[in-house]
């Protein structure tokens, strides 16, 4: 969609997260969109009627950016369909928590079920979309998001492998690079895999990138204001193809 010479512009959609110059957050913004901006960008692509599981971190924020009139049914692997937002202060219900163990609410039409049924939904391909964070995504769709090294002998996998292997679509939302500037979109994952060949799309602070079988990373959109394809490529660990 975006060629090398296409004028590039920021596509962050949520003006309330734009901050005044001088704000320390602005440095972050200059390097692309904010965490809320990334969540908003993901939310834009989720159509009504999808059953969606949102991982911990930025993925959880996606829910807040789906317009209320667009019905998207949120799944939580601890046995909930139809999750609503966090409760108002003082109105929390200790019996109703999401996979991150934060208190949530339930929309009318929601339901509860046990863990085996919940992961049956996941593994059985009934979840239209799972959005996860990641340490790395490879150009063949491999995702690494659970263990920080091969030597991490007590890593916490939780439901990540089930979600990555089971959901109909897996989108990753993460920073384009590590804090020290190393690319997180790579030719091959260095960290232990969560699932091979599972990712379809990546939303970063800089870009939206599809993973296309047989081609690798295909750039869909540059999100960082004023960034060229060449500049983006420089921060990416594998070839960024374009459809242009």
């Amino acid at each position, binding site marked *: 969609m975006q060629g090398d010479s296409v004028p590039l512009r920021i596509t962050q959609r949520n003006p309330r997260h734009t901050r005044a110059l001088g704000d320390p957050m602005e440095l972050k913004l200059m390097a692309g969109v904010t965490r809320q901006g990334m969540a908003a960008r993901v939310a834009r692509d989720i159509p009504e009627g999808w059953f969606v599981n949102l991982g911990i971190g930025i993925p959880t924020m996606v829910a807040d950016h789906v317009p209320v009139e667009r019905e998207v*049914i949120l799944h939580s692997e601890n046995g909930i369909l139809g999750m609503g937002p966090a409760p108002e202060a003082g109105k929390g219900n200790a019996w109703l928590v999401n996979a991150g163990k934060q208190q949530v609410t339930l929309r009318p039409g929601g339901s509860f079920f046990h863990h085996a049924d919940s992961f049956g939904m996941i593994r059985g391909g009934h979840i239209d979309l799972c959005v996860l964070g990641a340490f790395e995504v490879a150009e063949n769709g491999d995702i690494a998001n659970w263990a920080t090294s091969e030597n991490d002998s007590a890593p916490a996998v939780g439901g990540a492998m089930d979600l990555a292997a089971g959901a109909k679509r897996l989108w990753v939302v993460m920073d384009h690079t590590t804090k020290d500037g190393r690319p997180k979109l790579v030719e091959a994952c260095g960290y232990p895999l969560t699932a091979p060949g599972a990712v379809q799309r990546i939303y970063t602070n800089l870009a939206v990138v599809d993973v296309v079988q047989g081609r690798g990373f295909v750039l869909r959109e540059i999100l960082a204001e004023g960034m060229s394809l060449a500049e983006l490529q420089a921060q990416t660990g594998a070839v960024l193809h374009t459809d242009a």
Partner: protein
Amino acid sequence: MINKIVQSIAESLEGVPHGATILMGGFGAVGQPDELIEGLLEQGARDLTVVANNAGAGKVGLARLMMEGRVRKIICSFPRSAGSTVFEELYRAGKLELEIVPQGTLAERMRAAGAGIPAFFTPTGAGTKLAQGKESRVFNGREHILEQALPGDVALIEAWQADRWGNLTYRESGRNFNPVMAMAATLTVAQTHHVVDLGDIAPDHVHTPGIFVQRVVQVERGAPWV
């Protein structure tokens, strides 16, 4: 707004293709989606594989579908019962394939399909003629056989209550095969006795969450037999 409720049986069955594998709920007449089966007669799909506990009775419903030559194969646990003459005649005449599956294995194969389990080991049927051609393996000193998931293209099921998200309840022993069939099919169509507002089914009391249901159609009958 999500609204899985369609206005007619015909609409609920739109697009059922020839050659489809159809899962039909119910245990005998209880929990059996009679109107949807009648609708399938009208709809015209043929060359069907039908998965159900029984192989039809009398000359209506599944039996009629078989009489009309629309069924290629039956997968069931109990083909012969009172009134299963249509099945028996067609089967003897070589016009119908049959796969006999123990009732619990039938349910578990569909549950497996719905839960993303392609195959599982079970003691049921090990050492019997139904184990012929199946891989076997000893666990805990006992022979087990490997059974494959049984997915459907379409499930036709009967519910007691449904809402526009497709959440369902079943009534008493009308639950039977319906929930596992709902899980196992790509297109699950539920006929329901009652359509209720979203939220009217308490979240702790939903039997089949809407994620397993694609279309809902209301029928008028209030009991499995009239």
